[in-house]
């Protein structure tokens, strides 16, 4: 956890420093004496103080808890990274490709990645989940989901 605390503390300091730097460019308020930059500066100051405390604790060997190191050889880590890439792709193609094709492909790929090898489940689950979610949002709640390439069929 020591290394993780040092990194998290560093990120906290960096976020706080950026917030204070940006707040310096916000206008002052002459009537209220506190302008738009007042609150962010105080909060960023708090974040920096506790981030430094975390770093200080880690350097003194007083980090709490333990965390398993992420290793490429661990199948769980590979699955997690695959999910991240698939999730980013899901967001990117959701509008142009449409909800139904995107969700079916995503479900199928992720089920395979997560170790499902049952042909019946691989065929039915993506279809049932996707069409079920689509029916609830489109037909029951009357909310629009992206039609994408199926626009001519779905209207």
């Amino acid at each position, binding site marked *: 956890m020591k290394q993780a605390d040092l990194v998290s503390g560093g990120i906290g300091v960096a976020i706080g420093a950026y917030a204070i730097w940006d707040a310096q460019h916000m206008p002052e308020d002459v009537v209220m004496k506190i*302008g738009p930059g007042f*609150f962010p500066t105080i909060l960023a100051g708090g974040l920096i103080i506790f981030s430094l405390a975390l770093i200080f604790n880690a350097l003194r060997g007083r980090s709490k*808890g333990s965390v398993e190191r992420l290793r490429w050889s661990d199948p769980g880590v590979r699955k997690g990274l695959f999910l991240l890439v698939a999730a980013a792709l899901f967001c990117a193609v959701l509008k142009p490709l449409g909800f139904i094709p995107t969700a079916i492909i995503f479900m199928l790929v*992720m089920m395979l990645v*997560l170790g499902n090898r049952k042909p019946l489940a691989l065929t039915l689950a993506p279809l049932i989940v996707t069409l079920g*979610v689509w029916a609830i949002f489109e037909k029951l709640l009357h*909310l629009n989901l992206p039609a994408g390439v199926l626009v001519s069929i779905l209207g």
Partner: protein
Amino acid sequence: MDINWGLMASSYGAVFTPSVMLLIAVGVTAGIVIGALPGLTATMGVALLVPLTFGRPPLESLSMLMGIYAGAMYGGAISAILIRTPGTPAAAATVLEGYPMAKRGEAGRAMAMALFASFFGGVVGAVIMTLASPLVSSFALRFGPVEYFGLALFGLSVIISISGRSLIKGFMSAFFGLLICTIGFDPISGFPRYTFGAMEMMEGPPFIPTLIGLFAVSEVFNESLKSGVVKSITAKLDQYLPSWADIKYCFKELCRSSVIGTIVGAIPGAGGDIASFISYGEAKRASKNPELYGKGQIEGLAASECANNSCQGGAMIPLLSLGVPGDAVTAVLLGAFTIQGLQPGPLLYTEHIDIVYQIFASMMVAQFAMQFIGMAGIQLFARVIMVDRSILTPAIFVMAMVGAFAMRSNIFDVYTTLAFGMIGFLMMRYDFPLSPILLALILGPMAEANLRRAMVMSGGEWSILVTSPIAVTMMVLAVVSLFLSIRKHNQVEAKLAEMEEAFEKTIGEQPAGAGA
């Protein structure tokens, strides 16, 4: 503010209509299923299903969410008893007594008591909420900007003090959450802050996508790292209600724990997990046979389950009367209120008193629905635990993304959800509590906007903050709570470590009979 019994009766009448009853039943069933699945919490369940309330009338929407909340709190006990894995953090204390009972071949007795205790706690919590909320809100009607600033400070001080094992990380989470809510237009002057020139950032991070990301998508990432081994259930579930002797034996504990749970729930930031551990600890302390605890003592099981459901009513008190959520689930519920155009707080009582009473009624009815659906579906819910994770994990992701997109049909919200999902996953992994972020998103703007309003009123004089006795009391309470929590943190941590050790010991034992 007196209770309007006529309105109360008509509110029950409004809830007892087929459409509302159906939605409560759907909510309770979904809640039990979500609660029973280890890793899926009540917060996640409500966050994931809030989008299903878009476009529905307030009564139907809020009734369904009340059902989910009640169901999920009980559902956690199912996997806690049958497979030694609490379905929700609030059921962690249930494992200590529930699993040893299942090992002895008393899974049916444990499940029946868990359900009844949840029902009992839920009803007591709902009654206290019904009686206490109007009183608190009539007091809060006197609040101006200075008092609200004091209240927000108090809420923030409590959140920080009870969040997580590391006080420093709790503080960091809270400050990070507070900084996030400064993104967008400044509440008084309208100056855009930290928007990087993006139009979508002008209104700040969208609330629903942010919370779906933090609480649902982060769990999807977490689940994908696990091995996905599903345990099978072999326990015999032959009892639907606890015996009269068991109820009599646990009655004192049920009463005590439901009051403790409601009080803990009413403290901003404290949720079902804390309520159940405190009640369990108190039950053990007051017991004539404390040495039997950890070996399948039905009293302890009743205390834990009763407290986490009564916590629900407690957490609704500050939400409805002050607009300050009592726990993470009610923070998500606040988002659902906003979608319906309702702003919880004292004004809700003057502007939408009918809705307030309907919430009281729907919460009470949800408890009865939970008892009946829980009894009817006990065999089915026990099997839900075995659902294939390789299907469930991507399905939750799809639902989360669609929910985030549907509200504004904006692809930016989908990216926000993914980004907060990653942030939430990394924070959970490195032991940073997530709840302070969610509550900071609500209390932060409240603190800033009211401080700035007070400063407008005083022409920039800071002395206005000490002109109101209520505000001064709250600020003093905030300082005292902060001081006490820092001082007592080591003590609390030692006690939690002791509880966790007992928990680890219980779950570390080899299973026999209940699950394999």
